[in-house]
């Protein structure tokens, strides 16, 4: 499950339905679970008194699934749960965690991920006239687009 010695926290994380691995690197705990039960995760973190800090979405392809990372913050450490959408959707956590409400609306606007059960699924940042997923295609293959340095002064 993890190369580090298990702690009560890592053991609790590992017990959440759908968690495949828990590891520690770059000053944070990283929890992987492609089929993670996100509602069970939300309930477990609420029970531990750990707040939701943010949600990151990374589209895997223009029309495919999306990697979703839930970042919970316990003040001394960040715990990131990595999972993926199923048929373009994941259960909304907004009814359980207020901090999820705007984050899910923004992800829906940018990447067309659906969050069934969201109590207020209105656009957050998407201008009227744009379809959901307005930046999905543009943010799918980012690494190839990054340019080499253009300033000779900064290259050695």
């Amino acid at each position: 499950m993890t190369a580090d010695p298990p702690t009560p926290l890592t053991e609790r994380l590992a017990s959440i339905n759908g968690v495949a691995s828990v590891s520690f690197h770059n000053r944070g705990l990283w929890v992987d679970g492609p089929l993670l039960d996100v509602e069970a995760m939300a309930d477990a973190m609420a029970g531990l008194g750990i707040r939701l800090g943010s949600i990151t979405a990374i589209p895997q392809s223009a029309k495919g699934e999306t990697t979703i990372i839930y970042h919970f913050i316990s003040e001394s450490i960040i715990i990131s749960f990595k999972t993926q959408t199923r048929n373009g959707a994941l259960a909304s956590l907004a009814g359980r965690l207020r901090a999820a409400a705007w984050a899910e609306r923004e992800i829906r606007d940018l990447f067309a991920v659906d969050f069934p059960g969201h109590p207020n699924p209105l656009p957050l940042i998407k201008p009227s006239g744009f379809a959901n997923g307005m930046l999905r295609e543009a943010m799918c293959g980012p690494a190839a687009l990054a340019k080499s340095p253009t300033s000779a002064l900064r290259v050695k």
Partner: protein
Amino acid sequence: MAYTFPLGPYHPALEEPFKVNVQCKGEIIESATIEVGFSYRGIEMLAQQRNWIEVVTLIERVCGICSNTHASTFCMAAESIAGIEIPKRAAHIRTIVAELERLHSHLLWAGVGAEDIGFHSLFMEVFNLRERVMDMLEAISGNRVNYGMNCIGGVLRDIADPLSHLPVLDAMEKTMTNIVIPTFTKNPTVLARTRNVGRLSREQAIEWAVVGPVARASGVDIDVRKDQPYLVYADLGFTAVTRPEGDVLARVVVRALEMLESIRLVREALKSIPDGKLRASEGMPSVPAGEATMRTEAPRGEAFYYVASEGGNGPARVKIRTPSFVNIPAIQAMITGLPLADLSIVQASVDPCISCTDR
């Protein structure tokens, strides 16, 4: 009679566009909804199209007020992936600029707040003080905003004569202690508009997951500088300021006392700045494949970054969660049941940054 009142997006109190739709009965606010996104810029997408040098300049433009916070937090995330430890002198300089930026931001907020309650002479006093901070930042970086101090691996500019800045800090502390803080905390005009207004209880603060001065003014003792110290905060020592009341006055007091703590931190960092290099390496940084999360205490609260690298010339993904993104929604909880006339100062007491929110 019930009616809906739209405040914004062209705003009478703030220079940035956001909208609060309040549903009122008579003069009392019954509920509210908040709209943002009027100036969305897609910076996270643009970050994926720039290399590791260019992207720092882009990220610094997330916000004009806490620009240094964004650049330094992003750099710290990239440094975490790359295993880069920045020189101690660079960590001191980043801390000095971060705390000057907090002073600048809190003074800007205090001036806007003074203007919102019709206290124009206090606004002038505060903005006069803010000029001193901006002059100091200009002397250090060459810029009054967007300081361009950070690069992956350290800082781009040195502070040549650190002790020369101490007299300015002494003068600012004197004005703040003798004029600004007493006026904000004891003047009847200020108290009448801020005490018991716009309350957010500790339980509500936790429920809405607010951060920064908004959380600390509701008795939630969270501050990244204390909870997960970075740069040289552990060396300098740090005292977080909290208040239990949760009203606008508490937010005023927290920010006012934080300014004194920022002056102390800048003074200590200037006095103890060690000799040494400014950057761990020169040229294009090499960031291997990996991912990292990073958070710092921006003036408005916790700034959170997720950065992923695929080992290429630039980042594969940059996720930015600004403090305003989680603080602004809580305005709904603060204003319910208040007179409409309090809406302006309550939303200003959150110090909402729309530039940050709309990235």
